[in-house]
């Protein structure tokens, strides 16, 4: 009997404690990050984390959201594995009570998570993975938002650059033999076709292929006057090396995969002149946000200058994404997922962001805040990323 009383007393004390804690400090609003933070793509996860953290610090410095509640980040590693991605999505929402979850680099992971967000009624903010069907997933209501590239727009942008800016009409496509390569084969075919241009050759390569000269020689033989490349850093480097080896000075346009990893180190000056697409470049003149962000990166993460920013698009996308999420939470007046989702789709306030000024970035039909109008073309020069002027 006495033991029971003790237990009751203890429980009461615990309850009182919880109540008093709740009263003393306002409960933080949790934002999840489900991305690859280990392994070969760890740099992308780290970059996204930095973008979110700096945006959060700015919001918290101004007193937080919903009358003083601070933002707090919870990170889980998806290891680039779709199954793991689904597990941590649930964990972030069900156990950690995240209001919104940010995503990472892998399209495969993001696609696997799409049904989970609808089921958990939690908005997802994509900061990297570019797969077209991540946002265009056919679900209503759609809980998936993105401040990043979308393969379809990238392909449109690349096709336009090749045909209208470079004035080339005989593209040779060189794609990695994966779902990502496939998605771009479709997109490039569509947008080049729109310009009445047909690829003279389509070549594929596997991960870890040692030599790309056979593919390049075939494209050369087919009469290609430029090459459109869809590759990540290691294979992209082999392509550039093989191109130098066979002495084919063909203009090369690339998707953004070659901006991550150690592309510059692997290729040195061989990559000079390879142009590729980005959502943002920290080189050149920066707007106010850009200056503030570089300053914060320097103070917090010891980033000395734009050339030191690892995986720059991750930080830029996540930074703007976090500010948009903060505005949506404030507008919703709640941390309830469904309400935040609705607010994202009908954001009233304009946000002067890093990448651009966002005026109603999302609608019921459009869940990509960035389109081909917002991309920038950059070029490798002596191992550094330099902007290209695109008219």
């Amino acid at each position, binding site marked *: 009997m006495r033991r029971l009383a003790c237990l009751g007393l203890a429980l009461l004390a615990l309850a009182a404690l919880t109540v008093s804690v709740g009263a003393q400090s306002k409960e933080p609003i949790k934002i999840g990050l489900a991305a690859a933070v280990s392994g070969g793509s760890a740099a992308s996860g780290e970059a996204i984390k930095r973008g979110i953290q700096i945006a959060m610090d700015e919001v918290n410095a101004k007193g937080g959201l919903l009358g003083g509640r601070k933002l707090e980040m919870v990170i889980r590693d998806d290891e680039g594995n779709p199954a793991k991605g689904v597990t941590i999505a649930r964990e972030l929402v069900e156990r950690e009570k995240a209001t919104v979850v940010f995503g990472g680099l892998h399209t495969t992971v993001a696609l696997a998570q799409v049904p989970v967000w609808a089921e958990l009624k939690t908005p997802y903010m994509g900061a990297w993975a570019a797969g077209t069907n991540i946002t265009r997933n056919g679900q209503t209501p759609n809980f998936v938002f993105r401040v990043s590239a979308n393969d379809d727009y990238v392909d449109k942008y690349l096709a336009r650059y090749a045909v209208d800016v470079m004035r080339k009409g005989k593209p040779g496509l060189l794609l990695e033999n994966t779902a990502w390569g496939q998605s771009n084969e479709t997109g490039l075919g569509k947008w080049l076709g729109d310009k009445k241009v047909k690829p003279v050759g389509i070549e594929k390569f596997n991960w870890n292929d040692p*030599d790309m000269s056979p593919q390049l*020689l075939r494209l050369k033989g087919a009469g290609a006057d430029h090459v459109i490349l869809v590759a990540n*850093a*290691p294979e992209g480097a082999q392509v550039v*090396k093989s191109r130098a080896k*066979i*002495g084919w000075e063909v203009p090369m346009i690339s998707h953004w995969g070659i901006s991550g990893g150690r592309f510059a180190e*692997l290729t040195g000056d061989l990559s000079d002149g390879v142009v590729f697409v980005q959502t943002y470049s920290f080189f050149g003149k920066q707007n106010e946000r850009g200056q503030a962000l570089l300053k914060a990166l320097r103070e917090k993460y010891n980033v000395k200058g734009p050339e030191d920013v690892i995986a720059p698009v991750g930080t830029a996308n996540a930074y703007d994404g976090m500010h948009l999420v903060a505005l949506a939470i404030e507008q919703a007046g709640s941390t309830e997922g469904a309400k935040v989702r609705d607010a994202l789709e009908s954001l009233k306030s304009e946000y002067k962001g890093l990448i651009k000024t966002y005026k109603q970035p999302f609608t019921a039909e459009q869940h990509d805040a960035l389109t081909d109008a917002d991309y920038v073309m950059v070029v490798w020069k002596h191992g550094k990323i330099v902007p290209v002027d695109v008219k």
Partner: protein
Amino acid sequence: MLLQLVVSGPALGSMYGLVALGYHITWVTSRTMNFSQGHAVMAGAVVAYAAYVGLGWPLPAALLLMLVALALFGMLVERVAVRPFFLAGSPAWLLSTIALGIIAENVAMLSFGKDARAFPSALTRKPILLGGAGFYPQELLIPIVGLALMALVQVLYHRTRWGKQWKAVAWNAEAAGLMGINVPRAVMAAYALSALLAGVAGVLLAPILNVAPTMGTIIGLKAFAVAIIGGLTSAPGIIVAGLGYGLIESFVAGYVSTGAREIVGFALVILVLVMRPGGLGGAPATRRV
């Protein structure tokens, strides 16, 4: 195109041969082999990279360190993953060598990182252009060094005391032991040499393939295919099979497609196994009773 393929083929092919020779050496002495030869290729490249690029050692010193490290690696494989099972007559070395290779790969991932790194070489800086084809001097160096090493191994095997010991152990380990040959030591030496050859292949390939923890897996597998095609017991068969395999790969990739390369290559393995189970250079298989 033709010239391009004729140059690139033997570069990789001779390395398959060199690594395959490693399978051969331990197989003929002990009827066991290190199934993670591919990981020894990777270890060679990683160790040389760490010393040459990481620590800034001069290249000869880095190569020497690599040779010592790989010989030790081979001895470790023999001592830990092969000897206990070899003595017991169990085929479990098959699994234990694979296990050791996976451990080596993961150690490399933890210490070196998963990213591919460039291995600087003066011989891959400027390609030689020749009649529409282009190649790096390194690609010409590789088959020369590879063939020279294979010849050296043949001399070692047929002309030295070590070679005689290996032959004796291969013939009859028990009798060799009774004749005063230190059998475990002879087998260990064979493993050291085998890993060493793989390590050299790794360093030679590093400037072309880039250095990464996973770089050796496919090479090890293809070298095994070459060893089977050439005949595990026949060094000349392996050397020819290596060069041939490299050429065929290169031609299939050039004239058919890169996707068909692996299909043709490994189909060839099955074909040879059916037609000549002992491999091209091997004697028709005899059953030990």
